[in-house]
């Protein structure tokens, strides 16, 4: 992928993100933040793609750390969002 195509994707996605989020009720501010944070754990696939490309001990440690931390971000983020939203929808 050329840098220009990458930059195009980035700019368009930023505009899209702004449009998506402009009218969020305050009730959803926290779940939106933790849910979108879980999505930013997408760096996990970067970690997975990097694993096994180089076999020096240093990169292996960096990648192991990246996979573990990104997984915490993804799993914990989606799960805690689900837990919070469950409370919002609870009937009295």
């Amino acid at each position: 992928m050329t840098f220009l195509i990458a930059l195009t994707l980035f700019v368009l996605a930023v505009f899209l993100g702004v449009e998506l989020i402009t009218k969020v009720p305050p009730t959803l501010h926290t779940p939106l933040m933790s849910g979108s944070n879980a999505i930013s754990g997408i760096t996990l696939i970067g970690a997975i793609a990097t694993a096994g490309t180089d076999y020096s001990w240093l990169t292996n440690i960096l990648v192991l750390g990246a996979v573990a931390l990104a997984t915490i971000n993804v799993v914990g983020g989606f799960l805690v969002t689900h837990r919070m939203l469950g409370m919002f929808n609870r009937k009295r």
Partner: protein
Amino acid sequence: MDTFVQLGYLVSAALFILGLKRLSRPRTAVQGNMLGSTGMLVAVIVTLIGTEAAGIGIIIAGVILGGTIGVLLATRVAMTGMPQLVALFNGFGGIASLLVGAATLYPDLAEGVELEATDLATGALTIGIGAITFTGSLVAFAKLQELLTGDITQPAALRAANIGLVAMSAALGVLLVVMSGSIWMWLLALAALAAGITLVLPIGGADMPVVIALLNSFSGVAASTTGFVLGNSLLIIAGALVGASGLVLTLIMCRAMNRSLGNVLFGAIDAVAAGADGDRIYDGKVTSASADDVAMMLDTAAKVAIIPGYGMAVAQAQHAVRDLTRALEGQGKEVVFAIHPVAGRMPGHMNVLLAEAEIPYEQLKEMEHINPSFGQVDVAIVIGANDVVNPDARDDPDSPIAGMPILDADRARTVVVIKRSLSPGFAGVPNPLFALDNTMMLFGDGKAAVEEIITALADL
């Protein structure tokens, strides 16, 4: 194989977009979160297939380790600990991006492989932003968890150090691009890690909602720049979406305080000498009330508005407040909650706490919706909020917080303020609301005070 992976990423990106869209509507939010997590699952599976799971040992070890910690944190942490947890997750995303960036660049840098300037530049951004997100989030976590307490004595020095460290990081990033040596990458990481600490350390508690939202945005941007380094379209798109949504939220928070982002990060409110000024405002005009007085006032009320602030979270008073609400509703009174957008320590903090206490969200009113109707409120109960109900912000153009949108609690027929003392709020300014003729101060711990009111109501 590459086409298959790219198509999988396209599906995943579409799921993220739909997920975020639905996550921003109350009725579809649960579904939105599901779609988001499905998108993530698709992305992981496709990546594993595409790379033929080359580093499967490391991946399995990392996923088991991270998954266990993630599940434990997400299921065990109490709702009162949510701001800290969100801060922590932001930080983990940031450091993960940093590590991926470093692990990608390091082998080539160490072997002296010629790299494109754009790869090095986006790599430098990944490492810089990832590092700031990580340590910034850790400091925010430590402050929210009250591991770091006390006032920062040298905020100006810290801000100056921060600007210096950010400039140093930028210079090291340029050196990395020009000189292409791994030493610059590590130095950049160190400088940016220090910059994250000095960025968040001088920022006070009431400004935390802005900081948390901003770090959320940073964690997305770091993921996106990682995508530039790896040439991975999904990382670029998903990271940019999160970066943008975090930025929108940051600006919503800034607007709710009538301050610019720069002012929150680098400026402090010019707190006046609150002591003397406070005495002049409060002297002889403050009415102290007992729980019985409040109960009697509530007995004749038809409409009650409760205004929660961070103090309610600190006192863990949300369940007591719920019980009071039920008691009042049992007597046929209308009870609403007036929520200021920056009440608490993260965006939506009060909503999460009240949801935990099983208060339906239809009962929570936003500032713009409740303000015009405060005139019809018989009793406004302020619990643990201060600056967000300070009428000076609206009426006194010389006030340090002039122009900050407030909840017009002072327009209610009677105002009950539950508070430990007359000490000023975060802005350090005295609050004339406490000295109004129609205000009763109920001094004490939030939870205990609300429980006393409930008992007094039952004894009437």
